[in-house]
């Protein structure tokens, strides 16, 4: 990343991730929806830890809270934590081969999801049982695809 950067492709990417997070899905597939925003936050905090900090992740989480109608602060807290863990580990994560990276990422997603369960359990009814863990599995599958897409489409556009 030499020189200055354009920011709008990243912005568009996050808007896309936010939309995918609430896009309609068949009811049987809905629990398997990949946590797009979490993955996007992990990606950018892994690749640009200097620019993309916990604060930005927190703000995106706040938007996600409003979008999904959850308690204000739930996703914000989870995303800030996920960004923190990723930034701490970014040197190691970046040199992993892609599948190993995907597995490591799924652990960070798990941290986010468990924060979510915990807050859901405190503020209302905790439904769904083991299906709650489905997003962690689907994030492993989606991660390589998302990395590939970002490297081909978004990153070239950010270069000036």
């Amino acid at each position: 990343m030499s020189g200055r950067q354009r920011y709008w492709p990243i912005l568009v990417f996050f808007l896309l991730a936010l939309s995918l997070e609430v896009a309609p899905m068949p009811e049987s597939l809905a629990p398997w929806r990949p946590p797009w925003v979490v993955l996007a936050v992990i990606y950018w905090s892994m690749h640009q830890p200097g620019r993309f900090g916990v604060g930005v992740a927190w703000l995106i989480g706040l938007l996600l809270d409003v979008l999904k109608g959850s308690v204000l602060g739930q996703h914000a807290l989870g995303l800030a934590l996920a960004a923190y863990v990723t930034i701490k580990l970014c040197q190691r994560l970046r040199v992993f081969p892609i599948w190993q990276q995907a597995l490591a990422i799924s652990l960070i997603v798990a941290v986010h999801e468990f924060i979510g369960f915990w807050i859901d359990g405190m503020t209302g009814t905790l439904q769904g049982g083991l299906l709650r863990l489905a997003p962690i599995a689907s994030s492993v599958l989606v991660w390589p695809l998302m990395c590939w897409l970002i490297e081909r489409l978004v990153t070239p556009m950010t270069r000036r």
Partner: protein
Amino acid sequence: MFTRGPSLGMRLFLLVITSILLMYLDRQQGHLQNVRQGLSVAVYPIRLVVDLPSRAMLWAGESLSTRRSLIEENQRLHQDQLQSAVQLQRLEALEAENGRLRALLESRPRLPDRILVAEMLSVDLDPFRHNLVIDKGANDGLYVGQALLDADGVVGQITRVEPLSSEAIMISDPGHATPVEINRNGLRTIALGTGDSSSLRLPFLPNNADVVAGDLLVTSGLGNAFPSGYPVARVLAVDRRPGEPFAEVIAEPTAALNRKREVLLVWEQTDEAQSVHPATGDGAAVDGTGDADTSTDGTRDDAQPAATEPGQ
């Protein structure tokens, strides 16, 4: 961004504290209405964009349907309309009779409810809750606790009002309870959601209660959450277990939960509303709570200014 500043751990710590504070304020106090409403306007375009594909499908389906199918539909609707008109004639006579009887009993007549049609947005909020988003909000005079119906029965109630859209909880949500009565005999009970949009539970009916499969459950109007007399569900199965104090009763919602796009919003016009606001019919907004409605276009506002009662 700020590369020099407090350390990463410190920033995280501050954000965690802020989040916990936010959650507490939002959950326990409801102080954050303004913050949420401001942000909701920012995310409203996202909701619209997400809704676009299904809207486009709907539009394509409408504009690509053949002349023949349109004519058929038109004929069918004509017939339906005729039938409804005939039933409505009887209803008017019955309403008049009911009014006279209530006058004899010296109780106030029931007023017709005001109704507004809203459209669901195809937005998935949480796979484990039964929430929905509709395209009307505070600008149309919606309020928290307002009943949501469709052509066949009760759908749910509004849980959060934003300027341009609102969130609602369906009666099938596991956290929702609907006060109902059995239409046949007036037996009152509570219908709980199960998390399955095709069934409700009635866990508080004793084994000797007079309930049989096929009974229609209507809203009882208790708890001030729903206007009374709207169909909620039909009893599917009654399982009387001798060893247990309560029967296990399963009912199926009459409304097409999650299957239809249009929903109806109802402003309940209660007896108290009339006693507090005598019949003047000037269409003025009622009270200073801020969530009272004013008459908007496209609504059936044929009687009184509505009084609203935030049901929760």
